[in-house]
């Protein structure tokens, strides 16, 4: 189901018996639920589990006001076919609008395949839309807007939190929003996601900075990073660097390479620093390490040191 169809449902007040909301854009999802509640004159009840639905089944409201029942991350709804059939049959919960929320939904699952007309995906918004929303709330320069969007990984909910920080800091220090943003980033009060750290690690490895490489590796282990995730990140970082470095047409790098704008931005900032042959060798070593773990040839804890030792 497209988001536009949901908007139409809200405008015409013609709601389905249930919806399945999925996606990483939590803030927009939340606002749609509030909008549905407002338009339908309903209150929102958050249920802890699907078993609580039983008390609402086949009940009628005296006031004839619908309620919205929100259930988050219910494994039973995904796994139990008979339960799901009972819940989703017509008029099972006629005075309620059920909303099942999942951060991610496996596209191979039966739920995804059989309930496409009820599933609404709330994907992360693109840079242009987010810039418009940011500028509605706060006066930031275009560069700072882009930077904020990149730092918050296009998550509107996170952007709102950071805007709140920036506004409060600017108010307390009596400085402009742009200055406040710069200060907060410099003081690490605005958290920068670990993807930069992976590029730093790749940079340290490819420029032969052994102590920095091992120090960053230790940091990633201390933060609980799984080896396979680290290997996947290392591989994709090296691949992005290689693709950006060897692309023939610089006019539309995203289209030429298939990379996201964020990946292109990170890779472009380090373009030309590394030899393509070094990047290829690094990719092969990372891939061999990943294959070795899966075939049992390499111990998982030794996989990344294996890459470093073989590379140097």
């Amino acid at each position: 189901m497209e988001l536009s169809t949901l908007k139409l449902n809200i405008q015409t007040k013609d709601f389905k018996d249930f919806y399945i909301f999925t996606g990483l854009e939590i803030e927009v999802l939340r606002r749609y639920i509030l909008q549905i509640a407002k338009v339908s004159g309903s209150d929102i009840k958050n249920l802890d589990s699907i078993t609580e639905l039983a008390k609402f089944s086949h009940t009628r409201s005296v006031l004839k006001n619908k309620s919205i029942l929100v259930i988050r991350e219910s494994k039973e709804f995904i796994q139990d076919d008979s339960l799901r059939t009972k819940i989703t049959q017509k008029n099972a919960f006629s005075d309620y609008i059920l909303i099942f929320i999942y951060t991610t939904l496996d596209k191979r699952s039966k739920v995804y395949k059989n309930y496409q007309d009820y599933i609404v995906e709330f994907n992360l918004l693109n840079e242009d839309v987010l810039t418009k929303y940011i500028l509605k709330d706060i006066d930031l320069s275009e560069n700072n807007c882009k930077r904020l969007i990149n730092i918050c990984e296009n998550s509107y909910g996170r952007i709102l939190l950071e805007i709140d920080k920036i506004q409060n800091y600017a108010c307390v220090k009596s400085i402009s929003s742009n200055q406040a943003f710069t200060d907060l980033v410099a003081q690490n009060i605005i958290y920068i996601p670990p993807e930069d750290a992976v590029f730093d690690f790749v940079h340290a490895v490819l420029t032969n900075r052994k102590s920095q490489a091992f120090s960053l590796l230790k940091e990633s282990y201390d933060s609980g990073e799984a080896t396979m995730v680290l290997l996947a990140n290392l591989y994709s970082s090296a691949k992005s660097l290689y693709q950006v470095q060897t692309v023939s047409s610089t006019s539309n790098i995203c289209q030429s390479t298939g990379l996201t704008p964020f990946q292109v931005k990170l890779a472009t900032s380090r373009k030309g620093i590394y030899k393509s042959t070094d990047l290829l060798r690094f990719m092969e070593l990372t891939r061999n390490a990943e294959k070795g773990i899966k075939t049992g040839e390499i111990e998982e804890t030794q996989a990344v040191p294996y890459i470093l030792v073989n590379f140097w």
Partner: protein
Amino acid sequence: MIGQKFLLNSFDNMVKSACLPKFIILIGADGSGKKLIANHIANKSKLPLCEYGISVDSVRDLIRDVYKITTPLIYLLSGVDTMSVAAKNTLLKVTEEPAKMATIIVTATDLSGVPNTVRSRGQVFYMDPYEPDELVDFAKSKYDVTDEDEYIIRSVCNNPGDVLKLFSTADGAQGFYSFVTKVLDNIASVSGANALKISSSIRLKDTDENKYDLTLFWRAFMSVCANKLMSGEDPLKYQQAIQITTKSSQELRIKGINKQSAFDVWVLNIRKVWC
């Protein structure tokens, strides 16, 4: 069902003489028709076929159900070689103490993935290989097949599943083959970034749609290389390409292998020898 005459005949005779094994292990490649055989057995026996998943919980549900049923049923478990160790151990129970009313059919692509303990308690049947003519007839029964399509089917497809994958994209068999030849002609001459972008047309995830199957792509690539090798055109180049592609295709058998990185490394290795 096309082909499999010997296997179908064997099962028909077993059903007729009421000596169908209680635990059947069917081995065959993906798309070779194992589920169709199971359906055929169920139809011949005039019994319903119940399919269960291969997770631990599904196998436990199966065990709970097989001992409770009062009328005969046939149960099917697909892809037993990809089961987790816990699920395989749980399956042992029902193979050690067969239920009176249940016949269990399990399918696998690789017999070595089926534990010896489970294997020893069942009867193993292998899917017969398909004749190229049978595959062409199958394709003709479903699609509009030209002479060129027929040549491609004979070169690339091993079973009906491969035929279905070949025609699953919008541009059909000929579009697929022209993509393969285009990759072969250009992989060494384009930039590194463009070479790695070849993977965007290949089905590397289960959820990818309207993309070319990776195994078929490599098989077609090797077939084209073999033709060029036999024609005497730069034999070393094409021989190396066949070696690299064979090695990469074998890696697909490793459980959980990252197909994206496997394909990327294949591209890079081909470019290494051809550039």
